[in-house]
Structure formats: C-alpha cells, structure tokens
C-alpha cells in the first residue's frame, strides 16, 4: 500500500515536471538534475515550487526551494511533507 502511494506520488511529480518544463509526454524526468537541465532555469524553479505547492496541497518554505536540486531530491521533499 505504502509502495503504491509512493509510486503514485512519483508519477504525479513526473507529470508536474513535464508540464512545467514543457517536456514531451513520454519523457522520463526522474534522472533530471537542475544544474544540467537548461529548461530548469530560475523562472522554471519558481514555477515548479508553486506548482508543487498547488498540486500536492503543501506549503513549502524558502529552505525547501534550495533542496529542489534534482527530481530525486524534490521527490524526497514532497514525500517528507506529505508524510
């Protein structure tokens, strides 16, 4: 059950990444790292932050934004906040 919830969170977050970074619908964003992704610029970072708050009904702090350096770290952040 917990595994299923985690998979669903990951696929939901992947869809948010694809929408915000204008990625193709079959693109796998899970290996993305901010510093290596031209589409993930500072404006996209702000949009991601806000989209994640809206999608997962969370309230993030400034320090959380600094943790969003990769898809994997962002997923970890969302999982912690949802826990």
């Amino acid at each position, binding site marked *: 059950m917990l595994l299923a919830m985690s998979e669903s969170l990951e696929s939901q977050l992947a869809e948010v990444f694809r929408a915000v970074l204008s990625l193709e619908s079959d693109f796998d964003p899970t290996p993305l790292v901010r510093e290596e992704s031209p589409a993930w610029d500072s*404006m996209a970072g702000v949009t991601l932050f*806000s*989209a994640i*708050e*809206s999608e997962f009904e969370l*309230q993030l702090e400034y320090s959380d934004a600094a943790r969003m350096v990769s898809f994997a770290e962002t997923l970890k952040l969302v999982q912690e906040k949802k826990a």
Partner: protein
Amino acid sequence: MNFLEASRLAAGAAQAPALPIRLAMSGLAPQLDVFLGAAAAVRGRKIEIETLPYGTLGQFLHSPVPDEKTEILLLAPWDLVPELDWRTGFGSSPLEADTVLGSAQSLLKGISNRAHARILYMPVSVPPNLPSHAAGLRLETDLADLVLAAGGQLLEASSFSLDAYLQVGSYLASSELDRVAHRIVDAALAPSYGQAKVLVTDLDNVVWKGVVAEAGLDGIEYGPEGEGFGHFLYQTFLRSLERAGILLCAVSRNDPLDARAPLESGRMILGIENLVTVVASYHAKSAQIAALAQELNLGLDAMVFVDDNPIELAEVRRSLPEVTCVHFPPRRNDLPAFFDRLRGLFSREDLTEEDRERSALYRRRLSTMAPVEAQGEDLTDFLASLGMELVIHNRTQGDRTRVVQLINKTNQFNLNGKRWTDDEVGALLEAGGRLHGATLSDRSGSHGEILACLESPDRVIEVLVMSCRVFQRRVEHAFLGYLAELPQPPVSLRFGSTDRNEPFRHFLADLEWTPDESGVVSFDASAVRDRFAAGLPLTLRSAES
C-alpha cells in the same frame, strides 16, 4: 483545483473561441496562466494572455488602448503607493496619508479612463509606514474605497501570501490561484462595472439555508440568527438592489410550489413581490436564464447569476459565457467580498423613477412566461476535475442508522417515497435482502452518506434514494453501474410516483426505463454495463475491496 487538473482543462480548450486579455501586475505569477487557461476553459473559451513586463505599470497607462482586448490590473497597495511595498522595507520618515492618497487617486483615474480596463485589488495589510496604527488602518480602508470608486473589485485578502512574495516575488498564494483566476476571467467576460441589470439567484442554500423540498418550510433558516444569518443578510442585500432598480429573478431546480412557498409565506424579508419571476423546474438553469434574457429583452451580459453549487455555476458558465456567475460562499467570512463584488457589478448612482418602477413593469411582462425544458451542457470534463470518489458500503450488517435516516428524509431523488422504520429494514435484511450505502468525497471534502439502496431477497430494489446535494454529478449512474457488476444484480425496481420525486422520474426517462402498470421497472444489467462501464467522471470503489 490542483495544478495538473488545471493543465489538462486548459489543454482541452485548444479549439475554443479565444478570450484575449492583457494582464498587468507588479509581481511574478508562476502558473497563474495555467489556472487562467482552466478558468476560461470551463466557460468554453481559450485564454490568450499578454502579460506586462515587471515594473511597467506606469508605462502601461500611457500605452494605446487595445480595441478588443480586456485589460486586467491585478493591484496591491504598493502598486498605488510604492512606499507600501513589503519588499522595500521601511522608509526613514513616516508617510503622509493625504499625499499618497492623492497620487493613488490619479493613478486609478488613469486606469478607469481606459475603455476595457478592469481592476482587481487585494486589500492586504500594509507595512506600518505611517505615523500611527490607526493612520495605517485608515489608509488601507481609503485605498480600498478609491479602488471601488474607480469601478474596481476587491479580491479576498487571503489571496495574498507574504511568504511567497518575499521568497519568490509572487504575491498570490498557491492555494488561491484557482480562485483568483476565476475572478480574472469573470472580470474579463463581465460587463463594465455597474452595467449589470438583472440578478438571477438560486434559492436553496442561497436565499435561505436548507433544501425546502426536503426540509419543508419549517426546516429552512432565513432569520437574523444561527445558520440563517448569512442568508438573511443576502435577502436584505437583494432588497437594496431592488430599490435601486435592479431586476431580481429566481431560478431553482425544484418543484414550483416548493420553490415559491417560502417567498409567499410572509415570514422572510424577501417576498415574492420583490422578484420579477421565479422559474422552478428540474431542467437546466442555463436554458431558464437564456429564456429569461429573451423575455426581458436584455442581453445575457446584463445578467449576474448567483448559486452555491459549483456544478450549476459550471453548467451556466459553459453554456452562457456572457453571464457573470458568482459563487455564494460556503463560509460566512467570505460574505463581505461576495457582497462587495455584487455591489460593484450593480453599482448605480443615477437612480430614476423609471428604475424604481422597473420590477413591476417586468413582472407584468413575465407573468405569462412558459416553462422552459432543455438539457444542460455536458459537464463531463468539469466533473472529472472535481476528483470525486464514490465509495459503496455494504450496510446489510452493522450500523445502518444514517442510511435509514437518509431513506426517510429524502423526497426528490426517491424511487417511490415509501418511509421505512428501522425494524422493517431489519426484517427485510434478515430474510436475505441487501442494503447498500454510498459516501462521496471530492477536492472540497466529504459529502458524507449520500445514497441508500435496499433490495428485497428476490433482488427487487424497494428503496433507492440520493441526496439532492449531489445532483448532476452522475453518482446515480455510477451506482447503477456498480449494481450491474454484482454477481447477482437486481432484477427490477419498485417505482411509485409522488408529488416530489420528479427528479427520479427524469432519471428513469433518461434511461428510457418505463414502469409497468404496477410500477415495476426491469433492471437491465447488460444495458447499464454498456452505458456506464466507462466514461463516468468519478472513481468508484467498494469499501470491502
């Protein structure tokens, strides 16, 4: 509505007629465009946004006025008085309120002189940059007054997030983007402020608290106390609009006698004599409003529709995008912004004798208006965005109190109107019957137990009732689909016509199921499976699985 749902809705409107707007605000608004796209999509339009670059509000006022494009200015106090910007900190000397109000007034005058400009203002707390706390409060009020005087509307103060503004320069709270986007699209589609002429209001849970067809005249609340207080205020507000020459009409999904009874009772501050007409039927509200506009010989853009039910509002928005739709707030704390908004839409200063007589004139004209029968818009995609989950509970064993209560208090969506005692239900179950209940939840929370169905041992549905709170969500179709998939589906339903179960008669007619002479209707499981196996806008699961 969440981000991904908004993205999907916006993408689905790619072929819809364009709604071009020019949006000016002094901050970032990441993903507001997505929510604007969704808000336009539910009104059958595709948004086309031109966003002004950051910090160019002053230049905007000197730019040419576009011919067709509505200009929306989303303003905060620091757009009117730059010294009140939280991001710039506190000045070395206190502000002089009179001086800054003068410059704010000039700026607003410049905006209101533009033909297609609409102002939406966030009346948020300003930094304590004035000589005293009282002076700060006065300035906040004075700024909001100036905005209203310039024809602007106030947004809810909760739309502002100081945290987001300080963090990323976006002063809109993520949780409020959906609501703000709807206000922007409403403003873009609405007539100029003060130009609306007709207020069309829903009745149940708007003019009064409760559902009159279920609770009866004595079970609804409308007085200046308790649950009815907000509705009492609304009634007094409607009376003030009527005195100002605004035409008031009511549209209700109800039996006409039920709908009129409270208005004719003489108990409420709003009476039938204050309304031009009351249109009550179980047909689409959009069709009723369109017919009203025709009878009154007024454009749809002169009409404002107030309802508490987001599904009714979506249906009218989708079908009649020119009508301004306003949500009657579920929380009383949101009533001030609600009244402000209506006041802005209807504000008039030049009241004539003819205005005062207008209601009587139109009442005579509409006395012969024929009932309208028409289906509403297909809302499948909007309903899907609500994230509804229907959970079926087997209540054959265990506590059935709430289900029995539902059976005995539901009048409208009721198979035959028969009342059952708990003992009678128990006896049928002991003999081999089945009792189903269902709960519904969506993004806004749980609606609780909303459906009950009792089958006899020989699989005849003796009871099928559903709460009127969840009409139009296709819950009844999903439930039939569930029954059809059971290893032993029902074989028939025992229908009986009552004075109040017209919604159930419509349901059967829609399914093309006809009762025989004794009221028995065959349950065609394979037809139900074919029709409702897929495509319903909700998730269904059994509590046992």
